[in-house]
C-alpha cells in the first residue's frame, strides 16, 4: 500500500529539481492539449521554447525582446521575494509599478522640452520614490493598525489604475493630440528616453537595474544580517522577536524595497518600451512577478531563470498563435499548468511516498 510520510527536513534535491520537472510535465500536458486542439504538439512546443531563441527568422529580434519582457518581471520579483521570505505578502506590486511610472513620467513631462543629462537620473529617483511611497501605505497601516497588507496592497492596485487613467486623461495628456488620452511619447524626448544602450540588443537601463537588484538581493540574503533577519522572521517569528528583530521595521523595509523596485520597473517601462502614460499602460507585470518569485523559489538566481522562462512563454506564445493559430487562451492555460505542476510537485519536497508491504494492523 501507499503511504505518505512527512519528511523531517524539506528535501533539497526536490526543491531544485521540481521546477525543471514542472517544465517537462507542462510540455507533456501542454502538448496533449495542443494535440487535442488539432495542432502539431511538437511544433507548438518548439515555437514556444526554442524558436524565440534559436530560430533564424525570429531569433535576432526575439532574443532582445526576451530581455525587454523579462527585465521588469525580474526587477519586481526580486523585491517581492525578500518580503515573501519574511512572510510579508505584498500583492500590490502592480500598483507600485504604476505609481513609479507616473512619478518618473511626471518628472520628464515637467521638464519637457528642456534637454539635460540630469533629467533621466531624476526620473529614476522619482520612479523608485513613487513605488516606495505607494508601498508605504500598506506598510504603515500594518505596523500602526495591524491591517492585512495582502488586502490593502491589492486594493491599492485599483486605486493606482484610476489615478493612471486620470493622469492619462488630464494632467499628463499630450496637449498636441486633442481628444485622445495619453501623454507625450517619451521615446521622442531624448533626455527622458530609456533607449537601448547598444542598438538591437534589448539592453536598456531597466535590464541593468534588474541585474544589479539580483546581485544586491543575493548578497543581502546570504551575507548580510538583514537577510538573516528576513529568513528568521519567516521561519521562526517567535525566535526572531526574541533575537531582537523588530517586526515593524522588517515590514517597512520589505514593503519599501519591493515598492521601490516595482516603481523602478514601471519607470523604465514608461520611458522605454511602453513609451507613454496611457490608460492601458499596466499589463500585469506586477501580478506575473508573483508567479516568477515562486517559480524561482524566492531565490534571486532562481528568479532570473524563472523570469526568462515565463518571458519565453509569452513571446513564444505569441509566435505559436501567429504561426499555428493557437487560441491565446490555450497559451494562458499552458502558463497556468507551469505553476500548477510546480505547486503539485512541491508536495514531495515535504512528504515522501512510501510503498509498504501488507496492510497495517
Amino acid at each position: 500500500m501507499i503511504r505518505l510520510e512527512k519528511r523531517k527536513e524539506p528535501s533539497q534535491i526536490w526543491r531544485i529539481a521540481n521546477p525543471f520537472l514542472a517544465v517537462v510535465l507542462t510540455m507533456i500536458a501542454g502538448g496533449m492539449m495542443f494535440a487535442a486542439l488539432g495542432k502539431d504538439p511538437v511544433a507548438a512546443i518548439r515555437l514556444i521554447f526554442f524558436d524565440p531563441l534559436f530560430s533564424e527568422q525570429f531569433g535576432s529580434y526575439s532574443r532582445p525582446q526576451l530581455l525587454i519582457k523579462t527585465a521588469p518581471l525580474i526587477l519586481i520579483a526580486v523585491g517581492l521575494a525578500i518580503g515573501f521570505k519574511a512572510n510579508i505578502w505584498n500583492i500590490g506590486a502592480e500598483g507600485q509599478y504604476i505609481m513609479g511610472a507616473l512619478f518618473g513620467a511626471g518628472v520628464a513631462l515637467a521638464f519637457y522640452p528642456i534637454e539635460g543629462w540630469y533629467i533621466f537620473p531624476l526620473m529614476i529617483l522619482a520612479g523608485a520614490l513613487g513605488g516606495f511611497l505607494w508601498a508605504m501605505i500598506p506598510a504603515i497601516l500594518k505596523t500602526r493598525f495591524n491591517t492585512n497588507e495582502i488586502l490593502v496592497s491589492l486594493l491599492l492596485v485599483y486605486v493606482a489604475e484610476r489615478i493612471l487613467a486620470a493622469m492619462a486623461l488630464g494632467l499628463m495628456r499630450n496637449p498636441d493630440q486633442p481628444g485622445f488620452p495619453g501623454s507625450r511619447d517619451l521615446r521622442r524626448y531624448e533626455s527622458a528616453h530609456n533607449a537601448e544602450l547598444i542598438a538591437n540588443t534589448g539592453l536598456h537601463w531597466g535590464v541593468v537595474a534588474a541585474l544589479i537588484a539580483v546581485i544586491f538581493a543575493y548578497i543581502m540574503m546570504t551575507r548580510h544580517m538583514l537577510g538573516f533577519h528576513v529568513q528568521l522572521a519567516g521561519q521562526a517569528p517567535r525566535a526572531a522577536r526574541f533575537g531582537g528583530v523588530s517586526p515593524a521595521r522588517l515590514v517597512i523595509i520589505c514593503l519599501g524595497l519591493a515598492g521601490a523596485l516595482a516603481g523602478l520597473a514601471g519607470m523604465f517601462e514608461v520611458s522605454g518600451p511602453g513609451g507613454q502614460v496611457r490608460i492601458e499602460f499596466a499589463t500585469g507585470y506586477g501580478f506575473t512577478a508573483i508567479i516568477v518569485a515562486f517559480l524561482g523559489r524566492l531565490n534571486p538566481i532562481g528568479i532570473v531563470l524563472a523570469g526568462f522562462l515565463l518571458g519565453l512563454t509569452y513571446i513564444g506564445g505569441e509566435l505559436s498563435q501567429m504561426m499555428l493559430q493557437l487560441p491565446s487562451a490555450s497559451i494562458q492555460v499552458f502558463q497556468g499548468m507551469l505553476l500548477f505542476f510546480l505547486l503539485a510537485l512541491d508536495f514531495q519536497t515535504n512528504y515522501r511516498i512510501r510503498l509498504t508491504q501488507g496492510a497495517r494492523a
Partner: protein
Amino acid sequence: MKKLLTAAVASVALATPALADDPTKIGFIYIGPVGDFGWTAGHDRARQELQDHFGDAVETSIVENVDYGADAERVMTQMALSGTDMIFAASFGYGPDVNSVAGRFPDVAFQHATGYIQEHPNVSLYDARFYEGRAVLGHIGGKMTETNTIGYIASFPIPAVVSGINSAYLHAKAVNPDVEFRIIWTYSWFDPSLEADAAETLIEQGADVIMQHTDSTAAVRVAEDAGVMAFGQASDMVDFGPTAHLSAIVDRWAPYYISRVEAFKEGEWEAQNSWLGLGDGIIEMAPWNDRIPAELQEEADELIAAISSGEYHPFTGPINRQDGTPWLADGEVAEDGALATMDFYVEGITAEFPN
C-alpha cells in the same frame, strides 16, 4: 489636428506588387479574444469572409488579446519578420505601435482600424461612422424607455466613443425630452465582469435601456436577467438576450477588407484615411426586436435611409456644448475634423466629462 489633416492627404503607392503565385500573407492583431461576440468577433468575421473570397490566394493569421504598447509592437514586428504582406491592427490604441513598426518595415502595408496617427506612407486608417448607428439606437431607446433613463457603458473617452454618446443622447432627447443618460466608464474594451457590474449599477439607478460601447455580451445578459432592454455592440448579440436585445450596430468590415486586399494584390494599394458609414454598408442595424412597435420600426428605417442617403446628418445644429456655449448654429452640420477630435458632451447630458 495638423497630423489629422496631413494624414488625409498622405497617399503614396507601395512599390511592391505581390507575385501572382505567392499567397498574400495577411496578419490580424486583436485587442480582445475572437470569441468576444462583439468587436473582435466582427473583425474576425470579416477575416473569414476575406479568406473565403480569395481562397488560396491569401493566407490569414491572427494573434488575439494583444495589449497596446510593447506587446503590440512585438507581435507586429514578428508578423513582418515572418513575411506578412499586410497587417490589420484592429483597435484604436495600436496607433503609436503601428507607426513605429511601419517605419521599420516600409514594404508592409498597415491598415489601422479607428486609428488617428499616420506618420508613414504605408499606414492606412479606416473607421466607421458609429455615431450614425448611435443616432438610430438613441431614437429607439428614447421611445422605448419607460423610466426615461438610459444607461450607457462607455470604454475610453476617445472621440469615437464620445461622439457616440452625444449622438445617442441627441436623438433620444429629440423624441423624449425627459430622457436622462447615466454613463459609466470602464476604461477597458473587454472586461465581462466589469461590464456586468456597470450594467447592474445602471439598472439600480433606474435605467431600463442599456447601451454599451464595450465589447462583451455581459451587459445584454444582465439586462435579460433583470427584465430590462439593451442594445448589442459591434455584432448581433440577440442570442444573449432574446427579449432584452432591441437591436445592435453590426460591423461589416468584410467588403472594405476585400477591396483593400484586392488593391494590394493589384499593386495599387495606397495609404488612405477612410471613414465609412451606414450608406457604405460598413455598419448596419441588427434585426429589430419584435417588441419594438411597428410604427417605431418604420421611423427607425426612415432615419437609416435619411442618414444613408446623406439627406440628414446626425450632428445638425443647433447644438450647444454641455456648458451651454454654442457649438453648431441652426442648420449647421458638424465637420469630420470636429467629430474626429470630439472631447466634450453636448448640452443636456448631466454626467461629468471624464477629465
